[in-house]
Each structure stands twice: as structure tokens, then as C-alpha cells.
């Protein structure tokens, strides 16, 4: 039976000049005991719909029309009445467990206050109920943990506390807004299992808002796809993911990196520019031609890095081994993937290779020279030129006060001060075109670009010194899937034509499978195994790799 009914819901933001529709005439129905997935890319209005149900839209936005019927109650009758259903009938979970709990109140205080707001219980009863709830969401030692502050819980545990808070007054509808996006894959699967279990046990209606198609495939019963405030398609998860009707859904599904096979390129349905192949050749002319020899470009030997907790204590028990005795090689022209969960030391290795960190012990050889032992600055510069890095966050890795052309010119003039202005400009234009940006972009500032375009600028900047090794640290994890597909295609093309060697760091196994020839798996600073991509996915050698593969959300699971 239909439990939640959203009719013609519209949310608009009244701006000075115009009205922006964050959601327009959305119709959604959810049944009890069912998980409805709400997917879309950033700006699609999926979170807006979730927040609009309980009328929690940030100023100046407001629900301009439509009704929300919960059971037989019209909860949007007036803006005041909704307040009493919050927490009581409807629970909400937010994306980031680090920020959704009040840091200076204990978990218990927050639970008791919420319970006492809605249920007529004494403090003692509320406490007992809270402890049972904490147990139900899988927190051990609930009696003692009850008095802990949020910062004493790890990310996954904190999300469990958030869930217990959302469920503490027995709501019938749960809205989960990207509940696992900030979590590691192993924690993610635990939290999703918990949500599935609670849905069944409590006969909840659940709206799961996410951008991750794998999560949808594994958890949702039905899916609603949104794009720029409009509902594109709604239906059975299997039907939507396997036989999408609308073009947008088709392109969204095809941009998701498959987990079960390696494809040569991502299919971009929406726009296909035919002449970009020619553009790429432009910077090829400037590239010093390298004969491909089958040899190692990077050799990493017994690399370790420890961060001392305390400057004054020298005892080793206080130091955290971020990287612990790691050795591997990267062949010239190869894509090498490093995967691992947060804290596994993958970014630390990247930073040591580009010489931003000094290793505690061990050596890094680049083209048979040990770069960790170089003392002179000018000697090091020769290697810095050949190793470039692309960072995760395209918003903070570009200097907002510089024009794009100055951003790209900086590494060029640093390594080749004698370059003439005309040469420099032409080179910048060529670089921009090779990352599929127009020449006009050169005179603009980074904030005028979208996330994907900024990441293209980062790539152009990295290519400016004609590097042999490109270190990509989670280059697409801040981007939407369709943009991710474009950037990954671009990196593949560039690598092929320029014979780049790529060290690709990611937590996202499907992406790594598409990008890399060989993969190294890291756990707690130690390298578990290194093997060819297909071998790793088909016959994983290490227990941890098997675990990761098992837990990774698979869009293909829908076929089972």
C-alpha cells in the first residue's frame, strides 16, 4: 500500500532577478517496507526533495506548491504543523556523520532529548530505550558508549549513532540523504545492511538519496531518477537499470564504470565531439618522443613513512606508520593503480613520489636514479619536471586569484624561463585544447568553471611540463559519474597518445579496473598484493582483496 505520496511538489528559490526551481512538479510514492532510491547528479534536486518532505529547505527556498501525504495525514497543511512530525513520523539521516552530531553534547544527551521531545517517557525510561537502540544499530558496550561524545566514535560508528537518533521515536518514514558517501566501502556495506535490516524489521518506508548506482542496485526496490529538478523516470530498480526508457537515464547508467568487465572507453551518450582526436595531436608535436622500452620507470623499495604524534617523545609506540615497508615498480607507459580505504597510506605514497613528503626510510628510484637521496635543489627540479600530480579536489587545488592561463604558465616558465610570450601563449592554447577546453578559457578565473572543467585545467597544468609520470590522487572522486566518465576517457586518450606513465590512486575499485593495467592493494600502510588488473578481479590473491571485492557495491548485482 502507498504510505508516502508526494504530489506535484515544487521547491523554488526566489532570487533577486529570477526564480530558480530546485524541484518541479515531482510525484513520488513510497510503500511501507520498501526502499526507494532517489538518484541524480549534483544539482538534480534529489536532496531538495528529501528536505522538502519535512519542510527543511534553506532560505530563501520554499515549497511553492504540492502536497505530501503520509498515511492519511496531509503533513504540509501549514508550515507549522510539519514540525511535530519531524523525528516523530519521519526520520532523516544526513551524509556526513562527522558533522551531523553536536560535538559538545554526549550521544546519550542527544538521544534522551530527542526521545523526550516526542514520547512521554521519564529520563530513566528514555535512557533504557536509547541504550536498546544503540544496541540495535550495532554499537557494542552501549551502556558505556551512551556517555561518550561524538568525537569518540569512528566514522562508521557515528553514522550508526545518527541512525539511532533518526529512529529513536519510531518514525514510519526514513529519509537517508547520501548516508554512506563519506564512508569506506567496508563500513558502507555494513550501514546499508543495517538500513535494509531495519526497513524489514520495522516495516519502514525508506527514501535513499544517493548518486551511487552500485548502492542503488544493491539496496533499492524502486528507483526515481532526477535531473535539474525534474523527475525523469521512476520504476522498478531492475527495469530502470537494465532497460532505461529515457535518454538521460541511459547516459547515466552507461557512465557508471562496470565492475565485472573492462571496457575500452566510456560511452558518452549525450554529447559526442568528433573532432577532438585532431586536437590532441597538437601538443604531441611538442612532446619529446620517447621510444617505448620495456623497463621500470619508478621503483619503490622498502618505503616507510611514520608520522610522530608528539614532537618531544621519540618512542616508536606513539608514531603512526602511515606507510610500512612498501615495494613495487611501475613500468614505463603503464597505468598502475593503488587502492585502499581511507588511512591506508595511498596518498602518502603519492606525496612521497612527488617529493612533498620525505620518506622515513626506503628509496624511490625514478628512471634508475634514487630521487630520495638528491640534496641539490636544481638536481631535484629535473625530476619534479618529469613527475606531475593531479589532486582530488578541483576546487581547492587551483589558485582562485590567478587566471587559467597564469595557472598553466607557472610550471612552464618555472622550468623554462627563456620561453617567449608568443610561444607560451600558443603552448597554453594547445594544452587547453588537448584537454577539450576552448582558447577563451585562458582569460577566465577558476571559479567560472564547473568541477569537471576545473579538473581539466588541473590536467592541463600537470601536462605543461611534459611529464613522464602523472600521479593522479583520486582525480574523479569529487565529480559526478557522467563527468567522471569524460575525465577518465580524457586521461586514457592522453596516456595513449603521449605514452604517459600513470599512478592512479583511488578507493573506487570499478574505476581502477577501467583505468589500470596493474593494481596494488594497500591496507593500513602495508601492501597486500600487486597483480594484473584482470587477475586481481578474477582471482584475488589476498584475503583483504577478496573482502573489498565482495563488499564493493555492484551495479551488475541487479541481474542476479
Amino acid at each position, binding site marked *: 500500500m502507498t504510505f508516502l505520496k508526494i504530489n506535484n511538489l515544487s521547491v523554488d528559490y526566489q532570487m533577486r532577478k529570477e526564480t530558480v526551481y530546485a524541484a518541479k512538479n515531482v510525484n513520488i510514492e513510497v510503500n511501507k517496507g520498501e526502499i526507494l532510491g532517489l538518484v541524480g547528479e549534483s544539482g538534480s534536486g534529489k536532496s531538495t526533495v528529501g528536505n522538502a518532505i519535512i519542510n527543511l529547505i534553506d532560505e530563501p527556498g520554499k515549497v511553492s506548491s504540492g502536497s505530501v501525504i503520509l498515511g492519511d495525514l496531509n503533513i504540509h497543511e501549514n508550515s507549522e504543523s510539519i514540525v511535530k512530525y519531524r523525528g516523530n513520523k519521519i*526520520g*532523516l539521516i544526513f551524509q556526513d556523520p562527522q*558533522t551531523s552530531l*553536536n560535538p*559538545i553534547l554526549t550521544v546519550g544527551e*542527544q538521544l534522551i532529548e530527542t526521545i523526550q*521531545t516526542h514520547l512521554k517517557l521519564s529520563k530513566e525510561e528514555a535512557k533504557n530505550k536509547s541504550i536498546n537502540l544503540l544496541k540495535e544499530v550495532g554499537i557494542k558496550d552501549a551502556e558505556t558508549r551512551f556517555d561518550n561524545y561524538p568525537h569518540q*566514535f569512528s566514522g562508521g*560508528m557515528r553514522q550508526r549513532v545518527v541512525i539511532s537518533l533518526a529512529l529513536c521515536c519510531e518514525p514510519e518514514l526514513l529519509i537517508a540523504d547520501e548516508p554512506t558517501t563519506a564512508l569506506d566501502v567496508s563500513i558502507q556495506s555494513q550501514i546499508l545492511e543495517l538500513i535494509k535490516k531495519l526497513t524489514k524489521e520495522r516495516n519502514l518506508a525508506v527514501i535513499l538519496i544517493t548518486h551511487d548506482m552500485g548502492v542503488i542496485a544493491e539496496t533499492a526496490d524502486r528507483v526515481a531518477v532526477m535531473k535539474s529538478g525534474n523527475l525523469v523516470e521512476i520504476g522498478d530498480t531492475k527495469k530502470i537499470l537494465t532497460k532505461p526508457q529515457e535518454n538521460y537515464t541511459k547516459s547515466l547508467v552507461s557512465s557508471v564504470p562496470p565492475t565485472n568487465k573492462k571496457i575500452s572507453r566510456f560511452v558518452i551518450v549525450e554529447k559526442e565531439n568528433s573532432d577532438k582526436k585532431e586536437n590532441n595531436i597538437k601538443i604531441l608535436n611538442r612532446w619529446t618522443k620517447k621510444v617505448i622500452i620495456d623497463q621500470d620507470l619508478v621503483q619503490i623499495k622498502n618505503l616507510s613513512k611514520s608520522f610522530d604524534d608528539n614532537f618531544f617523545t621519540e618512542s616508536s609506540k606513539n608514531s603512526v606508520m602511515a606507510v610500512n615497508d612498501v615495494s613495487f615498480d611501475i613500468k614505463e607507459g603503464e597505468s598502475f593503480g593503488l587502492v585502499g580505504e581511507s588511512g591506508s597510506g595511498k596518498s602518502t605514497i603519492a606525496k612521497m613520489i612527488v617529493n612533498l613528503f620525505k620518506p622515513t626510510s626506503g628509496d624511490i628510484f625514478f628512471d634508475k636514479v634514487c630521487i630520495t637521496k638528491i640534496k641539490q635543489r636544481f638536481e631535484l627540479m629535473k625530476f619534479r619536471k618529469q613527475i606531475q600530480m593531479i589532486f582530488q579536489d578541483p576546487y581547492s587545488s587551483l589558485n582562485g586569484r590567478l587566471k587559467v592561463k597564469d595557472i598553466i604558465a607557472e610550471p612552464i616558465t618555472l622550468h623554462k624561463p627563456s620561453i617567449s610570450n608568443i610561444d607560451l601563449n600558443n603552448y597554453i592554447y594547445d594544452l587547453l585544447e588537448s584537454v577539450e577546453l576552448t582558447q577563451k578559457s585562458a582569460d577566465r578565473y577558476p571559479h567560472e568553471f564547473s568541477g569537471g572543467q576545473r579538473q581539466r585545467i588541473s590536467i592541463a597544468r600537470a601536462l605543461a611540463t611534459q611529464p613522464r609520470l602523472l600521479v593522479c590522487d583520486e582525480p574523479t572522486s569529487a565529480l559526478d559519474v557522467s563527468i567522471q566518465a569524460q575525465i577518465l576517457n580524457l586521461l586514457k586518450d592522453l596516456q595513449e597518445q603521449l605514452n604517459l606513465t600513470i599512478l592512479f590512486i583511488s578507493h573506487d575499485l570499478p574505476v581502477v579496473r577501467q583505468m589500470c593495467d596493474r593494481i596494488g592493494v594497500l591496507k593500513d600502510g602495508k601492501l597486500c598484493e600487486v597483480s594484473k588488473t584482470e587477475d586481481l578481479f578474477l582471482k584475488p590473491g589476498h584475503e583483504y582483496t577478496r573482502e573489498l571485492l565482495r563488499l564493493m557495491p555492484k551495479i551488475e548485482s541487479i541481474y542476479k
Partner: protein
Amino acid sequence: MVGEETSDEERAELRETLGLMDPIHVQFSRFIVNASKGEFGISYQLRRPVSELIVERLPATIELVVISALIALITGTLLGVYTGINRKGFLSDFVLAVSLLGVSLPTFVIGILFIYLFAVILGILPSFGRGEVVDLGFWTTGFLTVSGLKAIILPSVTLSLFQMTYIIRLVRAEMMEILQTDYIKFARARGISENSIKYKHALKNGLIPVITIAGINIGTLIAFSIITETVFQWPGMGFLFIQAVQFVDIPIMSAYLVFIAFVFVMINFIVDILYYLIDPRIRVKGDAASG
């Protein structure tokens, strides 16, 4: 210390007894040794031990500073919370406009304006002095007499104005920022009442930076009190200091400065402890990763 008719021999003798003929490093180490014992010598002007003078003047300044700090903290926080929650509205705009005046007008101008308004035109409050004081033996207080209470109003308000406006703006900015955070949004989503959200969840978090600033500011209040005490002829340490500067009375000046430095260090120490008590994130840094 010496008059017109003092003979050269007497002057030389005095220099000798005061130790002014010794080399600088000897004088300085003697100063350090004595200062550590709380002895700052004898005032050149008043011919009395400096420590005695300081103790005598201390109550006036402490009472003034404590009252000002309370005014600044309480009104500042209240108005800051009000303007932070009701961002639009006549009263908020008015408070912010006035607070701008408080930040930009120098203390002595405000003091003189107050004297003109309340003492000269309205004639309801005294323009100078501490009024009648009661001697408790170790402490002289103006709190126990009507004239003493009346006398402290103008100087303490004048002194607190700058700090108050500062705290208003700080609390307002903090409240506005915290009301936008995820945990406030999550509290709303759980149906927690607006009052609890504003005054329990948001305010508690918002006060953490206020404690740091307030601690530093109490030190500043003592330092600023020099001006206020001069304007209102308040018989405190600041007034003593200004007089000492005019007479180049070095023992008083050095004692005063050492005292101020000591107060600053103590206040910061207390603030650090308070911080530790209030913010649980600092309290249990050691086992943050558990679970």
C-alpha cells in the same frame, strides 16, 4: 624626592642609599631579586613602599574591571544571541549600528560624553571618584554604599562598551555560523524544539570562542582602565600609573607593568583550563580514535 634646598652631599647620599650609583646589571639583578619577593622599592614621589601603594589601589581597579567585564559579557552575549537569531528586524539593526559606534569611538570620548550627559546635564550620577568606601581591612569596597554604587556606573559602562560591542559581533557571527551547521539541521529534522536548538545546541557551541576572547579581554580591560580611571579620576592602579608616568616614578611603573603581565598570564591559564572543561574534544584527545 629631593627639594630645592637639598644640598649636593645629601643628594649624593640619597643616590647611594637608593643604589643609583651601581652599574646597570647590578641594579637590574637587584630589581629582579626584590621583585620576586614582591618588593618593588619605594615610590620616588610618594615615599612609600610601592607594594603598599599597589595593594591600596588594587580594590578600586579590580571592582571596576570585574563590573565592566560582567556588563560586557552578559549584555554582549545576550545582544549577540538576539542579533544572531533575529538577523532582520529593527532592533538588530539598531544594536549593530550602535555597536559600530562603540567600536569606533575612543574610550575617553565616550567617558566625557557620559559625564556631560549624566553628571552635568541630568545631574543624577557623580562625575568622578569612588564615592564613599567601606574599609574591610584587607579590601576597600564601594559596593556597600549608595554613593559607591552610583559612582561605579559611569566608569564601568564606559570601560565595558568597547569589549561589549566586540563580544556582540563575535557571538552574532558564531551563532549565525552554527545555525547553518549540519548538526543543527539534524536537530531540526529530529523535531527538537526551536528554543532548545537555539539556546542549548547552538549557544553552547557558540560560547566556546567567546571564552578565549573574553579571557584575553579581561586583561585588556585592566590595561584600558588607565584611560577610564584618568577620565573619571578613579583612584585605581591605572590612575596611579598615569601619575607615576608624569613624575617618572620608575618603581611604581615597573611594579604596575609586572603586575599586569602577571594578570595576563594567570587569565590565560584559567582560560585554558576552562576550555578544557567546556570542550569535550580537547578533554579526551588521547582516546579519540577508540571505537
